[in-house]
């Protein structure tokens, strides 16, 4: 009887990702048998917390789901609720919402590119070690991030869980000088973002190409953030309220986060900056588009390690769009649109830094939340992450690496997704698995 050689490699805690998660890799006879992305965060009870609350509470409560992307939760929630109530905001409010989102992209991408992902390309364990080799680049990254925070403070009221967002618009429009005084910093930031992207584009990327089903919002007139249809690289173009007809969630035993697949193929899909740049490159700002061409960034990039360049391009875009809005800003019109509560239901999807964030709410005639559904990008990406790690490690096995190297390789691939694990759970039946 032949003995079967099985082995389990565990990365107990993934470093440099938001929240807490681990990876379990099972091998059999030297081949990768299974990869599990283990989520350790407690189940999020926010969907249940929202039931019975006034709809006005939703942006503030959902912002607490994630410390890194509160604006994304606020934007998806207000757009979904406004859809349920049947009204649209003014063009001025719409522009300010895009400006707020730019602030979040800048803050999140700035951090991830420089301190969380870049270290992997130099074989160092942390941003600290990277700073010893590249102090000017890391300082630049921190400055880029800081100005994103400044924008969130100026428009959102504070950088941590902005308080100025409400259904219908904002509680208060900032005075012109509160925004225009950011212009010098953002002019510096635009060039700095270009320089940073040139820097990361020069990294050595593992040769790993996969066939992905890229999914992102798409809009005919702008680089989609808050509005648009849901598009895919496999030809799908649907309205957001058709989301449930095309995507479904299911529970997997090893994770408290639900996995998502396309209904037609039963396969995972890929969200995030790489998907956005691939699907919407023509809508990038002029400087970002020029830079993508200068860097010969592939028109259809299928290497997840090059997500860092896509984030850099979005940093450039966010700085350039912010500058445009800051320079033109005049606090005219109402800060918010008045509405009357009415029974209804509505969906919305916006592009969080990590990808498409879907919200759906049903409200009663008194304006109370009847039901809420929140599907974060990281949970949607989970199945794709596991598939990628399986395929990448299968490739890496050809070079006979050590267990430690395989574990490091798995971590590095997971980090290309910039997973925000603290967002990625919402309430479901939990079953914990003991690993020996």
């Amino acid at each position, binding site marked *: 009887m032949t003995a079967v050689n099985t082995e389990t490699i565990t990365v107990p805690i993934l470093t440099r990702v938001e929240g807490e998660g681990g990876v379990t890799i099972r091998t059999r006879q030297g081949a990768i048998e299974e990869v599990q992305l283990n989520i350790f965060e407690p189940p999020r009870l*926010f969907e249940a917390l929202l039931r019975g609350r006034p709809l006005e509470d939703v942006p503030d409560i959902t912002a607490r789901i994630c*410390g890194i992307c509160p604006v994304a939760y606020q934007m998806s929630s207000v757009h979904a609720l406004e859809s349920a109530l049947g009204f649209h905001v003014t063009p001025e409010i719409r522009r300010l919402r895009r400006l707020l989102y730019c602030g979040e992209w800048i803050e999140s991408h700035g951090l991830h590119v420089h301190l969380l992902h870049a270290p992997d390309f130099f074989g160092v364990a942390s941003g600290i070690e990277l*700073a010893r080799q590249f102090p000017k680049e890391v300082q630049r990254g921190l400055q880029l991030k800081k100005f994103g*925070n400044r924008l969130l403070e100026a428009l959102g009221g504070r950088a941590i869980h902005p308080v100025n967002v409400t259904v219908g618009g904002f509680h208060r429009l900032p005075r012109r000088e509160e925004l225009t005084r950011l212009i010098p910093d953002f002019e510096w930031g635009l060039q700095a973002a270009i320089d940073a992207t040139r820097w990361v584009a020069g990294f050595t990327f593992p040769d790993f190409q996969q066939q992905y089903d890229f999914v992102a919002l798409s809009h005919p007139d702008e680089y989609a953030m808050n509005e648009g249809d849901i598009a895919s690289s496999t030809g799908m173009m649907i309205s957001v309220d058709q989301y449930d007809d095309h995507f479904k969630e299911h529970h997997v035993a090893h994770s408290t986060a639900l996995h998502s697949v396309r209904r037609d193929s039963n396969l995972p899909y890929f969200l995030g900056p790489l998907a956005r740049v691939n699907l919407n490159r023509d809508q990038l700002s002029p400087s970002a588009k020029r830079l993508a061409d200068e860097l010969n960034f592939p028109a259809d990039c299928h290497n997840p390690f090059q997500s860092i360049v896509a984030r850099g391009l979005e940093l450039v875009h966010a700085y350039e769009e912010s500058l445009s809005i800051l320079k033109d800003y005049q606090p005219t019109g109402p800060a918010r649109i008045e509405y009357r509560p009415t029974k209804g239901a509505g969906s919305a999807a916006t592009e969080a830094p990590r990808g498409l964030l879907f919200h759906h709410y049903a409200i009663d005639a008194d304006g109370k939340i009847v039901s809420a559904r929140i599907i974060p990008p990281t949970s949607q990406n989970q199945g794709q992450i596991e598939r990628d790690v399986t395929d990448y490690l299968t490739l890496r096995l050809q070079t006979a690496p050590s267990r430690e190297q395989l574990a490091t390789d798995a971590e590095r691939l997971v980090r290309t997704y910039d997973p925000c694990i603290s967002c990625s759970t919402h309430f479901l039946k939990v079953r914990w698995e003991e690993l020996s």
Partner: protein
Amino acid sequence: MPTGPRPLVVGLGSHHGDDRAGWLVVDQLEASGYPREFLLRIAHSVDLLDRATPGQPLIICDACQGSGIAGRITRWLWPSDQLATLRHCGTHDLSLGEVLELGRTLNCLPGHIEIWGIEGTNWSAASEPSLAVKHAVLELAHQLSGAERHA
């Protein structure tokens, strides 16, 4: 009597239970008249590098875990070997220890950094802090606002 510039007091926290301790200390200091321009609330350790400068003393207030005694207050001076044992709790981007080390590498932090930890036991999402932590917040804020600390 210590003299020198007034310290920047940074409260590090989140909305979840006892992890709000750092923010509450800053809230209490503000209510007691500590100048607002010397107070900062942050959710991510790395954000303290936005405001910290080499010439200004820095005081950081945060929740911590350790002995299991809720409300226990501990003070560290950084750099300190004891801080090597501070584990990364919660969902912050970089741990506080990593951020301080990063700041030192980039020469953007003062030489004098105090870290005050209030021990917590409740970290439930969107919950209120425990009573023991609330009492500790008042005690620590009173201590930090003492006139003898400033020039």
